[in-house]
């Protein structure tokens, strides 16, 4: 009975969506917005505050935002405020998980991992950690950035949790890392407010598009996001893995 009702509701909703959207496909003007100078086109051409000519990879100096990866320039500069909010969501989630998942317990009945597994995990751990760090330090140049980079760091800790029964960390240390990264992010925003009068303003020179030290505050912000996301997800993972709810 419930399934029939659910099926009907889902079908009705799906039909509504598809009809509603296909009825207006001719009005979706995203491509017009690109030509007419909508937000997206401005972000692509990096000319929100005035044109600085065509952006050429490896040549243009001091372009607005100065990040070769446009998604990064949107995430860490044009719409950086969203990202600050977003890491706060994750921060709250990780806080909620550690509040609700209960305290750490030593898991006595776990099977001992084999030597090969443990050793290879210990070998893989730094490799994954470095990959994560590479991903978020190159976020303004290559695909990736703070979120996958941070998640990669979390995955490397996850690997140790799974493979090595002796491995344990204190959740509170992740909390402190989260707090510091978040505080620095806010502080960078406040610095922009002090220096240029705008919160989260890109107050550093943006350098040459395409070089590692380009983008002004973008790499700094992305590294902070990476560290913050990494410590938050690791906090969530370790709370979920080790926490035992006491009723």
């Amino acid at each position, binding site marked *: 009975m419930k399934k029939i009702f659910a099926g009907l509701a889902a079908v009705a909703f799906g039909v509504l969506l598809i009809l509603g959207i296909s009825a207006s496909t001719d009005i979706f003007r995203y491509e017009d917005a690109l030509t007419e100078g909508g*937000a997206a086109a401005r972000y692509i051409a990096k000319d929100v505050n005035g044109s600085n000519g065509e952006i050429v990879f490896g040549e243009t100096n001091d372009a607005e935002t100065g990040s070769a990866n446009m998604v990064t320039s949107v995430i860490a500069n044009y719409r950086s405020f969203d990202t600050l909010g977003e890491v706060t969501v994750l921060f*709250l989630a990780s806080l909620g998980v550690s509040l609700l998942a209960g305290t750490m317990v030593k898991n006595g009945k776990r099977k001992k991992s084999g030597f090969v597994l443990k050793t290879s995990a210990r070998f893989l751990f730094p490799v994954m950690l470095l990959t994560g760090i590479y991903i978020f330090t190159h976020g303004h140049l290559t695909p990736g950035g703070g979120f996958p980079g941070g998640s990669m760091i979390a995955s490397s800790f996850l690997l140790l949790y799974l493979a090595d029964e002796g491995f344990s960390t204190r959740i509170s240390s992740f909390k402190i890392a989260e707090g510091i990264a978040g505080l620095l992010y806010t502080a960078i925003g406040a610095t922009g407010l002090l220096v240029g*009068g705008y919160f989260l303003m890109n107050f550093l020179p943006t350098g040459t598009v395409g070089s590692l030290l380009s983008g002004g505050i973008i790499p700094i912000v992305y590294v902070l996001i990476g560290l913050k996301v990494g410590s938050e997800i690791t906090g969530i993972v370790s709370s979920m893995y080790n926490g035992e709810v006491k009723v």
Partner: protein
Amino acid sequence: MMLNPVLLIAIPLGLAFISVIFSKVKAWFLVVGTIACSVLVFFVESGETAIGGFRLPFAISLVVDDYTMIAVATVNILLLAVLAVSYKKASAYSTVLLAGLAGLNGMVMTGDLFNLFVFMEITAISAYIISSEGKKPEKSFNYLVIGSIGSVLYLLGLILLYGIAGTLNMAEMSEMIPGLTATAVILPVFLIFLGISVEAKLLPMSGWVRGVLGNSNSFTGPILATVYSSAALFVFGRLFSQILVMEKAISTVIVIIALITFISGQAAAFRSRSIRKVLLFSSIAQAGLAAALFVTGFVFPAVLVIVNNAIGKFVMFATAGRLDEEYGTDDYIGLRGAFCSNIVAGSAFTISALSITGIPLLFGFYAKLNVLAAYLNQGTYFVPAVILAGTVIEAAYFIRIIIRLWAPGREGEQADASESVGARKIFSFTEGMAVVIAALLIILSGILPDSAGKLIGGEKGLLGDEGPVISMTSMKGDSE
């Protein structure tokens, strides 16, 4: 010196991050942050402030005008009041509350649709965590599920609008909406309505309220029912009275949904015996009323309804939560005579209930008068009739509760000892003070409605020329 409004978000957020590092004294950060924000509210620069130093409308912006001013002030001061009433419980959630405060301030001030989504998620997630205080994980889970569905719907609606208009900036969007074909906008607007009705407690998405607020205590009740839901209603008002202004046919549908919310909320409140259930259904009803007003375009009366309801429900939820904690029940029949030993709390509760009902000389009367006058001026008679009918039900259930709680169990022939509950003090001095100040505020603004109206509506009134619909002085002049 006028301050950048982003401070209202950055300060609590920064303090939230610091408070996890120095978790021993996190409660201090909460107090400092809330007080700082409540003070800073009055010094923020008005206008649209860009973030990141980019040209508007391409940057995320914060909008401060008369409307968002009163919204931010309401939210911050209410949060401070909730802290005063339940400091001990709130201090355990210091970090969550600080981040939540940043989310609330951002939500009411932001000028960007996607940024609104992010802040709504911050607010929602902190509300989920706070609701877990009720020790009923299945209720919190229910809240989370409805909230997630709502946020997916909101996101879908917002991305459709982005696809159509090519912008996420609310001001630019509001200029473009009238030029778009109605068929293209119906679906996104309806999806956004559904998405935002979760926190605003409007009908199709208000299924969580019963479980969460029905198990609230003197901390979670006031905070979720007043702080969070007034912020959500203010956002609803901004979206549907300023940005997504629809043709009459579409807005009528939303008004009808809101009025159904109003009436069914009142009816459900009438049927309930638990005080908290009565209060939560009454909150749903008031949210429906405010939403109907907003969608019709009556911003000022709607704001009066929200503020009146927020102050009143703050007092009432705090009292009901305390009654439940002290006596182990909040069934008003089982609490006969509970106010006799708590005259202060009882009086505050009574004043708030009467104000929400709309008894003369209280703030609620002014609010209701404005609501009715707005509709009558427009020549609509059906909606005022519905509102009056709802008010009658409202008066019935509130007066029923008040009489039971004041009457010391001598309603029959014999005063049964078990009928009257014993004397227990429900508020300490500081907690009582917050409640008393709120009640005094209701009385004071009821006696001086014009000044209160100016305070809330700004000198020119909300949205420029509209202004307070009814002036008490002019009414007196007419009758003389």
